[in-house]
Protein backbone atom coordinates (compact mmCIF):
# COMPACT_ATOMS: atom_id res chain seq x y z
CA UNK A 1 0.00 0.00 0.00
CA UNK A 2 1.27 3.46 -0.85
CA UNK A 3 1.25 5.93 1.98
CA UNK A 4 1.46 9.66 1.40
CA UNK A 5 1.56 12.25 4.14
CA UNK A 6 1.23 15.90 3.12
CA UNK A 7 1.93 18.67 5.60
CA UNK A 8 0.29 16.72 8.38
CA UNK A 9 -0.38 19.01 11.29
CA UNK A 10 -2.16 18.01 14.44
CA UNK A 11 -2.83 19.81 17.69
CA UNK A 12 -4.73 18.74 20.78
CA UNK A 13 -6.89 21.63 21.99
CA UNK A 14 -3.97 23.93 22.81
CA UNK A 15 -0.94 21.82 22.16
CA UNK A 16 0.64 21.50 18.72
CA UNK A 17 2.07 17.98 18.49
CA UNK A 18 2.67 17.30 14.79
CA UNK A 19 3.63 20.12 12.49
CA UNK A 20 3.87 20.00 8.72
CA UNK A 21 5.06 16.43 8.45
CA UNK A 22 5.45 15.14 4.91
CA UNK A 23 6.75 11.83 3.62
CA UNK A 24 5.71 9.01 1.41
CA UNK A 25 6.20 5.26 1.29
CA UNK A 26 5.81 2.85 -1.59
CA UNK A 27 4.44 -0.68 -1.26
CA UNK A 28 6.78 -2.92 0.67
CA UNK A 29 8.70 -0.10 2.27
CA UNK A 30 9.50 -0.10 5.95
CA UNK A 31 9.34 2.99 8.14
CA UNK A 32 10.59 3.13 11.69
CA UNK A 33 9.41 5.96 13.89
CA UNK A 34 11.63 7.04 16.76
CA UNK A 35 11.22 9.87 19.22
CA UNK A 36 11.39 10.68 22.89
CA UNK A 37 8.34 10.21 25.09
CA UNK A 38 5.58 12.61 24.30
CA UNK A 39 6.84 13.64 20.88
CA UNK A 40 3.73 12.42 19.12
CA UNK A 41 4.46 8.90 17.85
CA UNK A 42 1.21 7.46 19.11
CA UNK A 43 -0.60 10.60 18.00
CA UNK A 44 0.69 10.09 14.47
CA UNK A 45 -0.58 6.53 14.46
CA UNK A 46 -3.93 7.63 15.78
CA UNK A 47 -4.19 10.06 12.88
CA UNK A 48 -3.54 7.21 10.46
CA UNK A 49 -6.23 5.09 12.08
CA UNK A 50 -8.72 7.95 12.08
CA UNK A 51 -8.92 7.95 15.84
CA UNK A 52 -8.03 11.62 15.57
CA UNK A 53 -9.44 13.86 12.90
CA UNK A 54 -7.06 15.46 10.41
CA UNK A 55 -7.86 17.86 7.60
CA UNK A 56 -8.58 16.71 4.08
CA UNK A 57 -5.50 16.28 1.96
CA UNK A 58 -3.10 15.33 4.74
CA UNK A 59 -3.01 11.53 4.64
CA UNK A 60 -3.51 9.32 1.61
CA UNK A 61 -3.56 5.54 1.48
CA UNK A 62 -3.15 4.30 -2.06
CA UNK A 63 -3.98 7.82 -3.25
CA UNK A 64 -7.28 7.81 -1.37
CA UNK A 65 -7.74 10.55 1.22
CA UNK A 66 -8.36 8.77 4.52
CA UNK A 67 -11.19 11.16 5.28
CA UNK A 68 -12.99 9.66 2.30
CA UNK A 69 -12.43 6.07 3.36
CA UNK A 70 -15.60 4.94 5.13
CA UNK A 71 -14.41 1.69 6.61
CA UNK A 72 -10.85 0.49 6.50
CA UNK A 73 -9.73 -2.72 4.98
CA UNK A 74 -6.25 -4.05 4.42
CA UNK A 75 -4.83 -2.36 7.47
CA UNK A 76 -3.26 -4.41 10.20
CA UNK A 77 -2.70 -2.91 13.59
CA UNK A 78 -0.78 -4.24 16.55
CA UNK A 79 -1.68 -2.14 19.59
CA UNK A 80 0.55 -1.05 22.40
CA UNK A 81 -0.06 -3.65 25.09
CA UNK A 82 -1.60 -1.14 27.42
CA UNK A 83 -4.33 -0.34 24.90
CA UNK A 84 -5.90 -3.74 25.28
CA UNK A 85 -8.72 -4.76 27.58
CA UNK A 86 -7.46 -7.49 29.92
CA UNK A 87 -9.18 -9.13 32.88
CA UNK A 88 -12.38 -10.03 31.10
CA UNK A 89 -11.99 -13.69 30.17
CA UNK A 90 -11.47 -14.43 26.49
CA UNK A 91 -9.51 -17.15 24.72
CA UNK A 92 -7.07 -16.87 21.87
CA UNK A 93 -9.58 -18.76 19.75
CA UNK A 94 -12.31 -16.24 20.52
CA UNK A 95 -10.13 -13.24 19.78
CA UNK A 96 -8.95 -14.61 16.47
CA UNK A 97 -12.13 -16.21 15.21
CA UNK A 98 -14.14 -13.09 16.04
CA UNK A 99 -11.57 -10.90 14.35
CA UNK A 100 -11.97 -13.01 11.22
CA UNK A 101 -15.33 -11.92 9.92
CA UNK A 102 -15.42 -14.57 7.23
CA UNK A 103 -15.81 -18.31 7.79
CA UNK A 104 -12.60 -19.87 9.03
CA UNK A 105 -10.68 -21.19 6.05
CA UNK A 106 -7.26 -22.38 4.95
CA UNK A 107 -5.77 -18.90 5.28
CA UNK A 108 -6.96 -18.71 8.86
CA UNK A 109 -5.46 -22.11 9.68
CA UNK A 110 -2.20 -21.12 8.05
CA UNK A 111 -1.90 -18.04 10.24
CA UNK A 112 -2.60 -20.10 13.36
CA UNK A 113 0.10 -22.55 12.36
CA UNK A 114 2.59 -19.90 11.26
CA UNK A 115 2.47 -18.28 14.65
CA UNK A 116 2.44 -21.55 16.52
CA UNK A 117 -0.80 -20.76 18.28
CA UNK A 118 -2.21 -24.27 18.42
CA UNK A 119 -0.87 -24.99 21.88
CA UNK A 120 -2.36 -21.86 23.39
CA UNK A 121 -5.43 -21.76 21.18
CA UNK A 122 -7.91 -22.32 23.99
CA UNK A 123 -6.01 -20.46 26.69
CA UNK A 124 -7.48 -17.46 28.40
CA UNK A 125 -5.33 -14.56 27.23
CA UNK A 126 -4.91 -13.40 30.79
CA UNK A 127 -2.69 -16.43 31.33
CA UNK A 128 -0.37 -15.69 28.41
CA UNK A 129 3.13 -14.29 28.58
CA UNK A 130 4.05 -11.03 26.88
CA UNK A 131 5.65 -12.80 23.95
CA UNK A 132 2.72 -15.17 23.43
CA UNK A 133 0.32 -12.27 23.54
CA UNK A 134 2.38 -10.42 21.00
CA UNK A 135 2.12 -13.40 18.64
CA UNK A 136 -1.63 -13.43 19.03
CA UNK A 137 -1.84 -9.72 18.18
CA UNK A 138 0.37 -10.01 15.14
CA UNK A 139 -1.57 -13.05 13.93
CA UNK A 140 -4.76 -11.09 14.40
CA UNK A 141 -3.40 -8.15 12.45
CA UNK A 142 -2.49 -10.48 9.57
CA UNK A 143 -5.94 -12.07 9.44
CA UNK A 144 -7.00 -8.88 7.76
CA UNK A 145 -4.60 -9.61 4.87
CA UNK A 146 -3.14 -6.19 5.44
CA UNK A 147 -1.29 -4.19 2.84
CA UNK A 148 -0.25 -1.76 5.55
CA UNK A 149 0.84 -3.00 8.96
CA UNK A 150 1.21 -0.59 11.86
CA UNK A 151 2.91 -1.70 15.08
CA UNK A 152 3.11 0.42 18.23
CA UNK A 153 6.06 -0.55 20.45
CA UNK A 154 5.85 -4.29 19.75
CA UNK A 155 9.11 -5.17 21.51
CA UNK A 156 8.31 -3.83 24.95
CA UNK A 157 8.32 -6.70 27.45
CA UNK A 158 9.22 -9.35 24.88
CA UNK A 159 12.27 -11.56 25.32
CA UNK A 160 15.22 -11.78 22.93
CA UNK A 161 14.04 -14.96 21.20
CA UNK A 162 10.61 -13.60 20.52
CA UNK A 163 12.07 -10.32 19.29
CA UNK A 164 14.12 -12.34 16.82
CA UNK A 165 11.03 -14.18 15.61
CA UNK A 166 9.17 -10.92 15.27
CA UNK A 167 12.03 -9.51 13.25
CA UNK A 168 11.92 -12.52 10.91
CA UNK A 169 8.17 -12.18 10.53
CA UNK A 170 8.42 -8.52 9.64
CA UNK A 171 11.18 -9.27 7.16
CA UNK A 172 8.99 -11.85 5.43
CA UNK A 173 6.03 -9.52 5.37
CA UNK A 174 8.11 -6.80 3.84
CA UNK A 175 9.20 -9.20 1.13
CA UNK A 176 5.58 -9.97 0.41
CA UNK A 177 5.15 -6.27 -0.39
CA UNK A 178 3.41 -5.19 2.79
CA UNK A 179 4.14 -1.62 3.85
CA UNK A 180 5.16 -1.50 7.49
CA UNK A 181 5.16 1.36 9.97
CA UNK A 182 6.87 0.56 13.23
CA UNK A 183 6.99 2.69 16.35
CA UNK A 184 9.83 1.65 18.57
CA UNK A 185 12.17 2.94 21.20
CA UNK A 186 14.57 0.16 20.38
CA UNK A 187 17.11 1.73 18.01
CA UNK A 188 18.52 -1.60 16.87
CA UNK A 189 15.34 -3.56 16.24
CA UNK A 190 14.75 -3.84 12.47
CA UNK A 191 17.71 -1.62 11.72
CA UNK A 192 18.60 -3.90 8.82
CA UNK A 193 15.22 -3.88 7.11
CA UNK A 194 14.19 -0.30 7.70
CA UNK A 195 14.06 1.85 4.59
CA UNK A 196 13.25 5.14 6.27
CA UNK A 197 13.35 6.70 9.68
CA UNK A 198 10.97 9.31 10.96
CA UNK A 199 12.38 10.94 14.03
CA UNK A 200 10.02 13.14 15.96
CA UNK A 201 11.44 15.87 18.14
CA UNK A 202 9.82 18.21 20.58
CA UNK A 203 7.81 21.19 19.41
CA UNK A 204 6.57 19.45 16.28
CA UNK A 205 10.03 19.37 14.71
CA UNK A 206 10.95 16.20 12.78
CA UNK A 207 13.46 14.46 10.54
CA UNK A 208 12.64 12.04 7.78
CA UNK A 209 15.61 10.22 6.39
CA UNK A 210 16.57 7.23 4.32
CA UNK A 211 18.26 4.43 6.23
CA UNK A 212 22.02 4.74 6.22
CA UNK A 213 21.71 8.33 5.13
CA UNK A 214 22.75 11.01 7.55
CA UNK A 215 21.53 13.95 5.55
CA UNK A 216 18.50 15.52 7.08
CA UNK A 217 15.75 16.12 4.59
CA UNK A 218 12.89 17.82 6.27
Amino acid at each position, binding site marked *: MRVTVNNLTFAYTQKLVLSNISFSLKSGEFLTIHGKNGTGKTTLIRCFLKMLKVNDGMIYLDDMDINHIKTFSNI*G*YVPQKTDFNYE*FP*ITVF*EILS*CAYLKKRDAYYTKIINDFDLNKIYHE*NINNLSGGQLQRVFIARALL*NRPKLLILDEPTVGVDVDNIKTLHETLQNLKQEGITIILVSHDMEFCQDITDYYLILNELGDYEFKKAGDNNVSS
Partner: protein
Amino acid sequence: MFLASVFKDLFAFDFLQYALLAGLLVGLLAPLIGTVVVIRRISFIADTLSHFSLAGVCIGVFLSKLINWKIFDPLFMGIVFSILGTFVIEKLRGFYKNYKELSMPIVMSCGVALSGLFISLSNNIDSKYTNSLLFGSILSVSSTDLITIIIITVIVFIFIMFTYKKIVTLCFDEVYARVSGINVKLLQLGLTIILALVISLFIDIVGVLLIASLMIIPVASAILIGDSFLNTVVSSIVFSEVSLVSGFVISYHANVTTGPVIIIINILILIVIMLIKKIRSSIASKKK
Protein backbone atom coordinates in the same frame (compact mmCIF):
# COMPACT_ATOMS: atom_id res chain seq x y z
CA MET B 1 -43.21 -28.18 50.63
CA PHE B 2 -43.73 -24.59 49.58
CA LEU B 3 -42.37 -25.41 46.13
CA ALA B 4 -45.40 -27.62 45.66
CA SER B 5 -47.76 -24.84 46.62
CA VAL B 6 -46.00 -22.41 44.30
CA PHE B 7 -46.35 -24.93 41.48
CA LYS B 8 -50.00 -25.46 42.21
CA ASP B 9 -50.64 -21.73 42.11
CA LEU B 10 -48.53 -21.43 38.99
CA PHE B 11 -50.96 -23.64 37.12
CA ALA B 12 -53.98 -22.03 38.66
CA PHE B 13 -53.20 -18.38 37.93
CA ASP B 14 -52.37 -16.86 34.55
CA PHE B 15 -50.69 -13.87 36.12
CA LEU B 16 -48.14 -16.13 37.80
CA GLN B 17 -47.30 -17.80 34.51
CA TYR B 18 -46.88 -14.40 32.85
CA ALA B 19 -44.71 -13.24 35.70
CA LEU B 20 -42.49 -16.30 35.64
CA LEU B 21 -42.10 -16.23 31.88
CA ALA B 22 -41.35 -12.51 31.92
CA GLY B 23 -38.86 -13.13 34.69
CA LEU B 24 -37.10 -15.86 32.75
CA LEU B 25 -36.75 -13.62 29.72
CA VAL B 26 -35.49 -10.73 31.82
CA GLY B 27 -33.04 -13.10 33.44
CA LEU B 28 -31.74 -13.97 30.01
CA LEU B 29 -31.55 -10.44 28.57
CA ALA B 30 -30.11 -8.62 31.55
CA PRO B 31 -26.74 -10.39 31.82
CA LEU B 32 -26.44 -10.63 28.06
CA ILE B 33 -26.59 -6.86 27.68
CA GLY B 34 -24.79 -6.47 30.99
CA THR B 35 -21.76 -8.30 29.65
CA VAL B 36 -21.24 -5.73 26.94
CA VAL B 37 -21.71 -2.91 29.41
CA VAL B 38 -19.24 -4.40 31.88
CA ILE B 39 -16.52 -5.14 29.35
CA ARG B 40 -16.73 -1.68 27.93
CA ARG B 41 -16.28 -0.30 31.44
CA ILE B 42 -19.50 1.65 31.37
CA SER B 43 -21.31 -0.26 34.12
CA PHE B 44 -22.63 2.96 35.50
CA ILE B 45 -24.54 3.65 32.30
CA ALA B 46 -27.25 1.15 33.26
CA ASP B 47 -28.02 3.04 36.45
CA THR B 48 -27.85 6.37 34.71
CA LEU B 49 -30.17 5.43 31.90
CA SER B 50 -32.69 3.80 34.17
CA HIS B 51 -32.95 6.94 36.28
CA PHE B 52 -33.19 9.14 33.23
CA SER B 53 -35.78 6.84 31.75
CA LEU B 54 -37.73 7.15 34.98
CA ALA B 55 -37.96 10.89 34.33
CA GLY B 56 -39.59 10.03 31.00
CA VAL B 57 -42.08 7.76 32.72
CA CYS B 58 -42.97 10.41 35.29
CA ILE B 59 -43.31 13.13 32.69
CA GLY B 60 -45.47 10.72 30.73
CA VAL B 61 -47.69 10.15 33.76
CA PHE B 62 -47.99 13.90 34.29
CA LEU B 63 -48.71 14.77 30.66
CA SER B 64 -51.10 11.94 30.01
CA LYS B 65 -53.22 13.18 32.90
CA LEU B 66 -53.34 16.62 31.27
CA ILE B 67 -53.72 15.61 27.65
CA ASN B 68 -54.96 12.25 26.52
CA TRP B 69 -52.45 11.64 23.73
CA LYS B 70 -51.03 8.21 22.99
CA ILE B 71 -47.46 9.46 22.70
CA PHE B 72 -47.50 10.46 26.36
CA ASP B 73 -47.87 6.86 27.39
CA PRO B 74 -45.42 6.46 30.29
CA LEU B 75 -43.75 3.33 28.91
CA PHE B 76 -43.21 4.98 25.54
CA MET B 77 -41.89 8.16 27.16
CA GLY B 78 -39.58 5.99 29.23
CA ILE B 79 -38.11 4.44 26.07
CA VAL B 80 -37.71 7.86 24.46
CA PHE B 81 -35.89 9.25 27.50
CA SER B 82 -33.72 6.20 27.81
CA ILE B 83 -32.50 6.64 24.24
CA LEU B 84 -32.28 10.40 24.68
CA GLY B 85 -30.17 9.82 27.78
CA THR B 86 -27.51 7.96 25.82
CA PHE B 87 -27.09 10.91 23.49
CA VAL B 88 -26.97 13.40 26.34
CA ILE B 89 -24.25 11.32 28.03
CA GLU B 90 -22.29 11.20 24.79
CA LYS B 91 -22.58 14.99 24.33
CA LEU B 92 -21.53 15.70 27.92
CA ARG B 93 -18.49 13.44 27.64
CA GLY B 94 -17.16 15.79 25.00
CA PHE B 95 -16.87 18.59 27.55
CA TYR B 96 -14.32 16.77 29.68
CA LYS B 97 -11.00 15.19 28.88
CA ASN B 98 -10.12 13.28 32.02
CA TYR B 99 -13.43 13.33 33.84
CA LYS B 100 -15.62 11.90 31.12
CA GLU B 101 -17.48 9.69 33.60
CA LEU B 102 -18.86 12.84 35.22
CA SER B 103 -21.43 12.83 32.44
CA MET B 104 -23.17 9.87 34.11
CA PRO B 105 -23.91 11.33 37.56
CA ILE B 106 -24.96 14.56 35.88
CA VAL B 107 -27.53 12.83 33.69
CA MET B 108 -28.59 10.61 36.56
CA SER B 109 -29.20 13.52 38.93
CA CYS B 110 -31.13 15.28 36.24
CA GLY B 111 -33.29 12.18 35.82
CA VAL B 112 -33.95 11.83 39.54
CA ALA B 113 -34.77 15.52 39.91
CA LEU B 114 -37.18 15.53 36.97
CA SER B 115 -38.84 12.35 38.23
CA GLY B 116 -39.36 13.80 41.70
CA LEU B 117 -40.68 17.03 40.29
CA PHE B 118 -43.21 15.46 37.96
CA ILE B 119 -44.37 12.91 40.47
CA SER B 120 -45.19 15.70 42.91
CA LEU B 121 -46.80 17.75 40.14
CA SER B 122 -49.13 14.96 39.14
CA ASN B 123 -51.04 14.76 42.40
CA ASN B 124 -52.97 11.75 43.51
CA ILE B 125 -50.63 9.16 41.99
CA ASP B 126 -51.17 5.83 43.65
CA SER B 127 -48.22 5.13 45.94
CA LYS B 128 -48.41 1.54 44.77
CA TYR B 129 -47.55 2.80 41.31
CA THR B 130 -44.52 4.80 42.40
CA ASN B 131 -43.39 1.90 44.52
CA SER B 132 -43.57 -0.42 41.56
CA LEU B 133 -41.55 2.06 39.49
CA LEU B 134 -38.82 1.94 42.07
CA PHE B 135 -38.80 -1.73 42.98
CA GLY B 136 -40.75 -3.34 40.17
CA SER B 137 -43.83 -5.43 40.26
CA ILE B 138 -43.21 -8.56 38.37
CA LEU B 139 -46.50 -10.06 39.53
CA SER B 140 -48.48 -7.39 37.72
CA VAL B 141 -47.06 -8.24 34.29
CA SER B 142 -49.94 -8.29 31.83
CA SER B 143 -50.25 -10.36 28.68
CA THR B 144 -49.43 -7.29 26.53
CA ASP B 145 -46.34 -6.63 28.64
CA LEU B 146 -45.34 -10.20 28.09
CA ILE B 147 -45.74 -9.88 24.34
CA THR B 148 -43.61 -6.72 24.35
CA ILE B 149 -40.92 -8.55 26.28
CA ILE B 150 -40.99 -11.48 23.89
CA ILE B 151 -40.70 -9.18 20.87
CA ILE B 152 -37.77 -7.28 22.36
CA THR B 153 -36.04 -10.52 23.35
CA VAL B 154 -36.34 -11.75 19.79
CA ILE B 155 -34.99 -8.45 18.42
CA VAL B 156 -32.04 -8.56 20.78
CA PHE B 157 -31.26 -12.15 19.87
CA ILE B 158 -31.40 -11.50 16.16
CA PHE B 159 -29.17 -8.47 16.58
CA ILE B 160 -26.63 -10.40 18.63
CA MET B 161 -26.67 -13.39 16.29
CA PHE B 162 -25.78 -11.24 13.32
CA THR B 163 -23.20 -9.09 15.04
CA TYR B 164 -21.69 -11.47 17.62
CA LYS B 165 -18.16 -11.47 16.20
CA LYS B 166 -18.20 -7.72 15.72
CA ILE B 167 -19.46 -7.09 19.23
CA VAL B 168 -16.74 -9.27 20.75
CA THR B 169 -14.07 -7.56 18.69
CA LEU B 170 -15.40 -4.10 19.51
CA CYS B 171 -15.61 -4.84 23.21
CA PHE B 172 -12.04 -5.98 23.49
CA ASP B 173 -10.26 -3.59 21.20
CA GLU B 174 -12.07 -0.67 19.68
CA VAL B 175 -9.12 0.49 17.62
CA TYR B 176 -8.69 -2.90 16.06
CA ALA B 177 -12.42 -3.06 15.34
CA ARG B 178 -12.07 0.19 13.49
CA VAL B 179 -9.16 -0.82 11.31
CA SER B 180 -10.58 -4.23 10.54
CA GLY B 181 -13.45 -2.66 8.67
CA ILE B 182 -16.21 -2.78 11.26
CA ASN B 183 -18.53 0.20 11.16
CA VAL B 184 -17.93 1.00 14.81
CA LYS B 185 -20.25 4.01 15.00
CA LEU B 186 -23.19 2.06 13.62
CA LEU B 187 -22.55 -0.93 15.87
CA GLN B 188 -22.28 1.29 18.92
CA LEU B 189 -25.50 3.00 17.99
CA GLY B 190 -27.21 -0.38 17.68
CA LEU B 191 -25.91 -1.52 21.05
CA THR B 192 -26.94 1.72 22.70
CA ILE B 193 -30.45 1.58 21.35
CA ILE B 194 -30.81 -2.01 22.51
CA LEU B 195 -29.50 -1.08 25.94
CA ALA B 196 -31.96 1.79 26.16
CA LEU B 197 -34.85 -0.38 24.99
CA VAL B 198 -34.11 -3.14 27.47
CA ILE B 199 -33.69 -0.72 30.35
CA SER B 200 -36.96 1.05 29.77
CA LEU B 201 -38.65 -2.30 29.36
CA PHE B 202 -37.26 -3.44 32.71
CA ILE B 203 -38.53 -0.44 34.67
CA ASP B 204 -41.98 -1.95 34.91
CA ILE B 205 -40.74 -5.35 35.89
CA VAL B 206 -37.73 -4.95 38.15
CA GLY B 207 -37.93 -1.28 39.01
CA VAL B 208 -35.52 1.59 38.45
CA LEU B 209 -33.41 0.93 41.50
CA LEU B 210 -32.67 -2.69 40.66
CA ILE B 211 -32.19 -2.73 36.90
CA ALA B 212 -28.48 -2.07 37.02
CA SER B 213 -27.89 -4.75 39.63
CA LEU B 214 -29.69 -7.31 37.53
CA MET B 215 -27.48 -6.49 34.57
CA ILE B 216 -24.18 -6.12 36.35
CA ILE B 217 -24.00 -8.48 39.34
CA PRO B 218 -24.38 -11.82 37.52
CA VAL B 219 -21.64 -10.67 35.15
CA ALA B 220 -19.47 -9.59 38.06
CA SER B 221 -19.80 -13.14 39.44
CA ALA B 222 -19.16 -14.80 36.09
CA ILE B 223 -15.98 -12.85 35.33
CA LEU B 224 -14.41 -14.31 38.45
CA ILE B 225 -14.79 -17.88 37.27
CA GLY B 226 -14.95 -17.69 33.49
CA ASP B 227 -12.04 -18.73 31.32
CA SER B 228 -13.53 -17.83 27.98
CA PHE B 229 -15.90 -15.19 26.75
CA LEU B 230 -18.63 -17.66 25.90
CA ASN B 231 -18.60 -19.53 29.19
CA THR B 232 -18.55 -16.23 31.07
CA VAL B 233 -21.69 -15.14 29.28
CA VAL B 234 -23.34 -18.51 29.81
CA SER B 235 -22.54 -18.63 33.51
CA SER B 236 -23.78 -15.09 34.01
CA ILE B 237 -27.07 -16.16 32.46
CA VAL B 238 -27.20 -19.22 34.70
CA PHE B 239 -26.61 -17.11 37.83
CA SER B 240 -29.20 -14.66 36.70
CA GLU B 241 -31.84 -17.33 36.05
CA VAL B 242 -31.13 -19.15 39.29
CA SER B 243 -31.58 -15.96 41.27
CA LEU B 244 -34.71 -15.06 39.35
CA VAL B 245 -36.48 -18.34 39.78
CA SER B 246 -35.51 -18.82 43.41
CA GLY B 247 -36.25 -15.18 44.18
CA PHE B 248 -39.61 -15.59 42.55
CA VAL B 249 -40.50 -18.65 44.57
CA ILE B 250 -39.26 -17.25 47.86
CA SER B 251 -40.90 -13.87 47.50
CA TYR B 252 -44.20 -15.42 46.46
CA HIS B 253 -44.14 -17.73 49.40
CA ALA B 254 -43.05 -15.10 51.91
CA ASN B 255 -45.28 -12.49 50.33
CA VAL B 256 -42.56 -9.84 49.84
CA THR B 257 -41.54 -7.77 46.82
CA THR B 258 -39.79 -9.94 44.25
CA GLY B 259 -37.13 -7.55 42.87
CA PRO B 260 -35.15 -7.03 46.07
CA VAL B 261 -35.15 -10.76 46.87
CA ILE B 262 -33.73 -11.53 43.43
CA ILE B 263 -30.94 -8.99 43.86
CA ILE B 264 -30.08 -10.25 47.32
CA ILE B 265 -29.74 -13.78 45.96
CA ASN B 266 -27.53 -12.42 43.19
CA ILE B 267 -25.31 -10.77 45.74
CA LEU B 268 -25.16 -13.95 47.81
CA ILE B 269 -24.00 -15.85 44.72
CA LEU B 270 -21.32 -13.22 44.17
CA ILE B 271 -20.13 -13.46 47.77
CA VAL B 272 -19.99 -17.26 47.64
CA ILE B 273 -17.92 -17.14 44.46
CA MET B 274 -15.56 -14.59 45.95
CA LEU B 275 -15.13 -16.74 49.05
CA ILE B 276 -14.46 -19.88 47.02
CA LYS B 277 -11.91 -17.97 44.99
CA LYS B 278 -10.21 -16.68 48.10
CA ILE B 279 -10.06 -20.10 49.71
CA ARG B 280 -8.77 -21.71 46.53
CA SER B 281 -6.00 -19.21 46.07
CA SER B 282 -4.92 -19.47 49.68
CA ILE B 283 -4.81 -23.27 49.38
CA ALA B 284 -2.80 -22.92 46.18
CA SER B 285 -0.31 -20.57 47.79
CA LYS B 286 0.06 -22.86 50.80
CA LYS B 287 0.88 -25.79 48.55
CA LYS B 288 3.78 -23.78 47.16
